[in-house]
Protein backbone atom coordinates (compact mmCIF):
# COMPACT_ATOMS: atom_id res chain seq x y z
CA UNK A 1 0.00 0.00 0.00
CA UNK A 2 1.46 3.38 -1.03
CA UNK A 3 1.30 6.00 1.66
CA UNK A 4 0.28 9.63 0.99
CA UNK A 5 3.73 10.90 1.98
CA UNK A 6 5.42 8.52 -0.45
CA UNK A 7 3.13 9.70 -3.24
CA UNK A 8 3.93 13.31 -2.37
CA UNK A 9 7.66 12.61 -2.38
CA UNK A 10 7.51 10.87 -5.74
CA UNK A 11 5.40 13.67 -7.23
CA UNK A 12 8.15 16.06 -6.18
CA UNK A 13 10.68 13.84 -7.98
CA UNK A 14 8.69 14.33 -11.20
CA UNK A 15 9.09 18.08 -10.94
CA UNK A 16 12.82 17.64 -10.30
CA UNK A 17 13.38 15.83 -13.62
CA UNK A 18 15.85 17.99 -15.61
CA UNK A 19 14.88 19.12 -19.14
CA UNK A 20 18.33 17.99 -20.38
CA UNK A 21 20.17 15.16 -18.69
CA UNK A 22 23.81 16.23 -18.36
CA UNK A 23 25.06 12.67 -17.84
CA UNK A 24 23.45 11.44 -21.07
CA UNK A 25 24.87 14.47 -22.90
CA UNK A 26 28.36 13.73 -21.51
CA UNK A 27 28.03 10.06 -22.51
CA UNK A 28 26.94 10.98 -26.06
CA UNK A 29 29.99 13.26 -26.41
CA UNK A 30 32.27 10.48 -25.08
CA UNK A 31 30.83 7.92 -27.50
CA UNK A 32 31.16 10.44 -30.37
CA UNK A 33 34.82 10.96 -29.45
CA UNK A 34 35.43 7.21 -29.41
CA UNK A 35 33.75 6.83 -32.82
CA UNK A 36 36.08 9.50 -34.25
CA UNK A 37 39.15 7.85 -32.69
CA UNK A 38 38.11 4.40 -33.93
CA UNK A 39 37.36 5.45 -37.50
CA UNK A 40 40.14 7.98 -38.04
CA UNK A 41 43.07 7.17 -35.74
CA UNK A 42 43.00 3.43 -35.06
CA UNK A 43 44.78 1.11 -37.54
CA UNK A 44 42.64 -1.15 -39.71
CA UNK A 45 42.90 -4.91 -39.50
CA UNK A 46 45.31 -6.47 -42.06
CA UNK A 47 42.86 -9.19 -43.10
CA UNK A 48 39.38 -7.70 -42.72
CA UNK A 49 40.19 -4.07 -43.52
CA UNK A 50 38.26 -1.07 -42.17
CA UNK A 51 35.12 -3.01 -41.25
CA UNK A 52 36.99 -4.58 -38.32
CA UNK A 53 36.67 -1.16 -36.63
CA UNK A 54 33.02 -2.08 -35.95
CA UNK A 55 34.62 -4.12 -33.14
CA UNK A 56 34.68 -0.91 -31.03
CA UNK A 57 30.85 -0.68 -31.18
CA UNK A 58 29.87 -4.32 -31.54
CA UNK A 59 31.84 -5.78 -28.62
CA UNK A 60 31.17 -3.09 -25.96
CA UNK A 61 27.47 -3.15 -26.91
CA UNK A 62 27.51 -6.96 -26.59
CA UNK A 63 29.25 -6.94 -23.19
CA UNK A 64 26.87 -4.31 -21.80
CA UNK A 65 23.68 -5.47 -23.51
CA UNK A 66 24.14 -9.17 -22.96
CA UNK A 67 26.19 -9.68 -19.80
CA UNK A 68 25.59 -6.50 -17.78
CA UNK A 69 21.98 -5.59 -18.71
CA UNK A 70 20.70 -9.16 -18.43
CA UNK A 71 22.48 -9.61 -15.08
CA UNK A 72 21.00 -6.37 -13.70
CA UNK A 73 17.55 -7.31 -15.03
CA UNK A 74 17.70 -10.79 -13.48
CA UNK A 75 19.31 -9.84 -10.15
CA UNK A 76 17.03 -6.84 -9.57
CA UNK A 77 14.02 -8.95 -10.57
CA UNK A 78 15.12 -11.88 -8.42
CA UNK A 79 15.64 -9.69 -5.36
CA UNK A 80 12.26 -8.04 -6.05
CA UNK A 81 10.60 -11.45 -5.72
CA UNK A 82 12.17 -11.66 -2.28
CA UNK A 83 11.69 -8.19 -0.77
CA UNK A 84 8.95 -6.69 -3.05
CA UNK A 85 10.53 -3.26 -3.39
CA UNK A 86 9.13 -1.31 -6.38
CA UNK A 87 12.49 0.39 -6.96
CA UNK A 88 14.04 -2.98 -7.85
CA UNK A 89 11.31 -3.60 -10.41
CA UNK A 90 11.99 -0.19 -11.97
CA UNK A 91 15.74 -0.95 -12.09
CA UNK A 92 15.01 -4.29 -13.78
CA UNK A 93 12.70 -2.78 -16.40
CA UNK A 94 15.17 0.04 -17.10
CA UNK A 95 18.05 -2.41 -17.56
CA UNK A 96 15.90 -4.56 -19.85
CA UNK A 97 14.90 -1.68 -22.11
CA UNK A 98 18.39 -0.16 -22.35
CA UNK A 99 19.84 -3.66 -22.81
CA UNK A 100 17.37 -4.24 -25.64
CA UNK A 101 18.69 -1.15 -27.43
CA UNK A 102 22.29 -2.35 -26.98
CA UNK A 103 21.39 -5.86 -28.19
CA UNK A 104 19.77 -4.36 -31.28
CA UNK A 105 23.01 -2.50 -32.00
CA UNK A 106 24.93 -5.78 -31.54
CA UNK A 107 22.73 -7.63 -34.07
CA UNK A 108 22.74 -4.82 -36.63
CA UNK A 109 26.49 -4.08 -36.51
CA UNK A 110 27.20 -7.82 -36.50
CA UNK A 111 25.09 -8.26 -39.64
CA UNK A 112 26.88 -5.44 -41.46
CA UNK A 113 30.26 -6.84 -40.37
CA UNK A 114 29.14 -10.33 -41.46
CA UNK A 115 28.16 -9.12 -44.93
CA UNK A 116 31.63 -7.61 -45.42
CA UNK A 117 33.62 -10.55 -44.03
CA UNK A 118 31.42 -13.65 -44.59
CA UNK A 119 29.48 -12.42 -47.63
CA UNK A 120 26.08 -12.67 -45.89
CA UNK A 121 24.08 -10.51 -43.49
CA UNK A 122 22.81 -13.49 -41.55
CA UNK A 123 23.65 -17.14 -40.99
CA UNK A 124 21.71 -19.56 -38.78
CA UNK A 125 24.81 -20.48 -36.84
CA UNK A 126 24.88 -21.05 -33.05
CA UNK A 127 26.18 -17.67 -31.78
CA UNK A 128 23.99 -15.52 -34.01
CA UNK A 129 20.88 -17.64 -33.53
CA UNK A 130 21.20 -17.79 -29.73
CA UNK A 131 21.85 -14.02 -29.58
CA UNK A 132 18.67 -13.50 -31.62
CA UNK A 133 16.78 -15.71 -29.13
CA UNK A 134 18.00 -13.50 -26.29
CA UNK A 135 16.86 -10.40 -28.22
CA UNK A 136 13.38 -11.96 -28.57
CA UNK A 137 13.35 -12.93 -24.87
CA UNK A 138 14.11 -9.36 -23.77
CA UNK A 139 11.53 -8.08 -26.27
CA UNK A 140 8.95 -10.48 -24.79
CA UNK A 141 9.90 -9.22 -21.31
CA UNK A 142 9.09 -5.65 -22.41
CA UNK A 143 5.88 -6.67 -24.21
CA UNK A 144 4.76 -8.68 -21.16
CA UNK A 145 5.26 -5.64 -18.95
CA UNK A 146 3.20 -3.52 -21.29
CA UNK A 147 0.37 -6.06 -21.33
CA UNK A 148 -0.18 -6.29 -17.54
CA UNK A 149 -1.84 -3.36 -15.79
CA UNK A 150 -1.61 -4.60 -12.20
CA UNK A 151 1.75 -3.36 -10.93
CA UNK A 152 2.44 -6.20 -8.51
CA UNK A 153 1.55 -8.95 -11.01
CA UNK A 154 3.57 -7.19 -13.73
CA UNK A 155 6.64 -6.96 -11.53
CA UNK A 156 6.36 -10.58 -10.32
CA UNK A 157 5.83 -12.20 -13.72
CA UNK A 158 8.45 -10.13 -15.52
CA UNK A 159 10.96 -10.85 -12.72
CA UNK A 160 10.57 -14.58 -13.37
CA UNK A 161 11.05 -14.07 -17.11
CA UNK A 162 14.09 -11.87 -16.44
CA UNK A 163 15.74 -14.54 -14.29
CA UNK A 164 15.07 -17.18 -16.95
CA UNK A 165 16.49 -14.93 -19.70
CA UNK A 166 19.79 -14.70 -17.82
CA UNK A 167 20.18 -18.49 -18.06
CA UNK A 168 20.65 -18.12 -21.81
CA UNK A 169 23.65 -15.78 -21.46
CA UNK A 170 26.32 -18.35 -20.39
CA UNK A 171 25.09 -20.63 -23.18
CA UNK A 172 25.51 -17.83 -25.74
CA UNK A 173 29.03 -17.21 -24.43
CA UNK A 174 29.92 -20.90 -24.80
CA UNK A 175 28.43 -21.41 -28.28
CA UNK A 176 31.70 -20.52 -30.02
CA UNK A 177 33.48 -23.25 -28.03
CA UNK A 178 30.74 -25.91 -28.12
CA UNK A 179 29.69 -25.70 -31.78
CA UNK A 180 31.36 -25.13 -35.10
CA UNK A 181 30.15 -21.84 -36.55
CA UNK A 182 31.14 -18.65 -38.34
CA UNK A 183 31.46 -16.37 -35.32
CA UNK A 184 35.04 -16.08 -34.01
CA UNK A 185 36.01 -16.93 -30.43
CA UNK A 186 36.24 -14.04 -27.94
CA UNK A 187 39.13 -11.61 -28.40
CA UNK A 188 38.68 -9.89 -25.03
CA UNK A 189 36.49 -12.00 -22.69
CA UNK A 190 38.77 -15.03 -22.40
CA UNK A 191 41.17 -16.39 -19.77
CA UNK A 192 44.29 -15.28 -21.68
CA UNK A 193 45.14 -11.62 -22.29
CA UNK A 194 43.32 -9.92 -25.23
CA UNK A 195 44.86 -10.74 -28.61
CA UNK A 196 45.02 -7.19 -30.05
CA UNK A 197 47.68 -4.60 -30.81
CA UNK A 198 48.21 -1.90 -28.11
CA UNK A 199 46.61 0.83 -30.31
CA UNK A 200 43.52 -1.30 -30.87
CA UNK A 201 43.39 -2.27 -27.20
CA UNK A 202 43.55 1.35 -26.01
CA UNK A 203 40.71 2.33 -28.40
CA UNK A 204 38.72 -0.65 -27.15
CA UNK A 205 39.32 0.39 -23.51
CA UNK A 206 38.09 3.92 -24.25
CA UNK A 207 35.08 2.51 -26.12
CA UNK A 208 34.21 0.33 -23.11
CA UNK A 209 34.41 3.37 -20.80
CA UNK A 210 32.28 5.56 -23.09
CA UNK A 211 29.63 2.90 -23.69
CA UNK A 212 29.52 2.01 -19.98
CA UNK A 213 28.88 5.69 -19.22
CA UNK A 214 26.13 5.79 -21.87
CA UNK A 215 24.61 2.55 -20.58
CA UNK A 216 24.33 3.71 -16.97
CA UNK A 217 23.29 7.26 -17.97
CA UNK A 218 20.42 5.80 -20.00
CA UNK A 219 19.43 3.41 -17.20
CA UNK A 220 19.45 6.35 -14.74
CA UNK A 221 17.24 8.47 -17.01
CA UNK A 222 14.92 5.53 -17.74
CA UNK A 223 14.65 4.81 -14.00
CA UNK A 224 13.82 8.46 -13.26
CA UNK A 225 11.12 8.38 -15.92
CA UNK A 226 9.68 5.11 -14.54
CA UNK A 227 9.59 6.66 -11.04
CA UNK A 228 7.80 9.72 -12.38
CA UNK A 229 5.34 7.56 -14.35
CA UNK A 230 4.48 5.46 -11.30
CA UNK A 231 4.11 8.60 -9.17
CA UNK A 232 1.67 10.06 -11.68
CA UNK A 233 -0.38 6.85 -11.65
CA UNK A 234 -0.41 6.89 -7.83
CA UNK A 235 -1.58 10.50 -7.78
CA UNK A 236 -4.32 9.71 -10.30
CA UNK A 237 -5.48 6.72 -8.26
CA UNK A 238 -5.29 8.49 -4.87
Amino acid at each position, binding site marked *: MTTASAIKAR*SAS*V*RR*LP*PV*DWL*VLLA*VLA*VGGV*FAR*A*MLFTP*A*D*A*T*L*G*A*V*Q*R*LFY*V*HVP*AAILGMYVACSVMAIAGGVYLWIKDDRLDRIAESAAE*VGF*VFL*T*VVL*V*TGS*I*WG*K*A*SWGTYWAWEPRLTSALFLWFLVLSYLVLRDAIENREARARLSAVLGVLALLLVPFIHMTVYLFRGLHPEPIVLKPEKPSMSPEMLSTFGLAMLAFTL*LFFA*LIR*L*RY*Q*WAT*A*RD*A*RVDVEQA
Partner: protein
Amino acid sequence: MRALATLGVQDTTIAAVDSLSGDVAVALQLEPTLAPRERTGPPDTASAMKTGYIVASVIFLAYIVLLMRRVASVRKSS
Protein backbone atom coordinates in the same frame (compact mmCIF):
# COMPACT_ATOMS: atom_id res chain seq x y z
CA MET B 1 51.12 -37.68 -64.93
CA ARG B 2 53.61 -37.94 -62.11
CA ALA B 3 52.80 -34.31 -61.32
CA LEU B 4 49.14 -35.22 -60.88
CA ALA B 5 50.08 -38.03 -58.51
CA THR B 6 52.13 -35.69 -56.35
CA LEU B 7 49.14 -33.32 -56.19
CA GLY B 8 47.08 -36.10 -54.63
CA VAL B 9 44.97 -36.92 -57.67
CA GLN B 10 43.65 -40.50 -57.46
CA ASP B 11 45.02 -43.28 -59.68
CA THR B 12 41.70 -43.78 -61.51
CA THR B 13 41.65 -40.11 -62.51
CA ILE B 14 45.28 -40.31 -63.68
CA ALA B 15 44.45 -43.36 -65.76
CA ALA B 16 41.52 -41.51 -67.33
CA VAL B 17 43.70 -38.51 -68.18
CA ASP B 18 46.36 -40.90 -69.52
CA SER B 19 43.88 -42.36 -72.00
CA LEU B 20 43.04 -38.97 -73.51
CA SER B 21 44.80 -37.45 -76.48
CA GLY B 22 47.95 -35.44 -75.84
CA ASP B 23 46.38 -31.95 -76.23
CA VAL B 24 43.54 -32.63 -73.79
CA ALA B 25 45.92 -34.17 -71.30
CA VAL B 26 48.06 -31.04 -71.38
CA ALA B 27 44.97 -28.86 -70.85
CA LEU B 28 43.91 -30.95 -67.85
CA GLN B 29 47.22 -30.59 -66.05
CA LEU B 30 46.70 -28.59 -62.86
CA GLU B 31 48.93 -25.62 -63.48
CA PRO B 32 48.51 -22.70 -61.10
CA THR B 33 46.95 -19.60 -62.66
CA LEU B 34 46.58 -16.08 -61.37
CA ALA B 35 43.16 -15.00 -60.13
CA PRO B 36 41.47 -12.53 -62.53
CA ARG B 37 41.67 -9.70 -59.99
CA GLU B 38 44.84 -10.09 -57.99
CA ARG B 39 44.58 -8.07 -54.75
CA THR B 40 47.22 -6.85 -52.38
CA GLY B 41 46.44 -5.74 -48.82
CA PRO B 42 43.12 -5.85 -46.96
CA PRO B 43 39.78 -5.57 -48.80
CA ASP B 44 38.10 -2.18 -49.12
CA THR B 45 35.37 -2.39 -46.47
CA ALA B 46 35.29 1.28 -45.44
CA SER B 47 31.69 1.75 -46.63
CA ALA B 48 30.52 -1.17 -44.46
CA MET B 49 32.32 0.36 -41.47
CA LYS B 50 30.67 3.77 -42.05
CA THR B 51 27.25 2.14 -42.48
CA GLY B 52 27.71 0.28 -39.19
CA TYR B 53 28.68 3.42 -37.27
CA ILE B 54 25.84 5.45 -38.80
CA VAL B 55 23.20 2.79 -38.03
CA ALA B 56 24.47 2.36 -34.45
CA SER B 57 24.40 6.15 -33.93
CA VAL B 58 20.84 6.38 -35.30
CA ILE B 59 19.63 3.60 -32.96
CA PHE B 60 21.19 5.18 -29.87
CA LEU B 61 20.04 8.71 -30.75
CA ALA B 62 16.50 7.53 -31.55
CA TYR B 63 16.28 5.89 -28.12
CA ILE B 64 17.65 9.00 -26.37
CA VAL B 65 15.06 11.17 -28.19
CA LEU B 66 12.32 8.69 -27.15
CA LEU B 67 13.42 8.90 -23.50
CA MET B 68 13.58 12.71 -23.62
CA ARG B 69 10.06 12.84 -25.06
CA ARG B 70 8.76 10.51 -22.34
CA VAL B 71 10.36 12.66 -19.63
CA ALA B 72 8.96 15.85 -21.20
CA SER B 73 5.51 14.25 -21.38
CA VAL B 74 5.54 13.26 -17.69
CA ARG B 75 6.79 16.70 -16.65
CA LYS B 76 4.08 18.42 -18.67
CA SER B 77 1.30 16.33 -17.17
CA SER B 78 2.47 16.72 -13.53
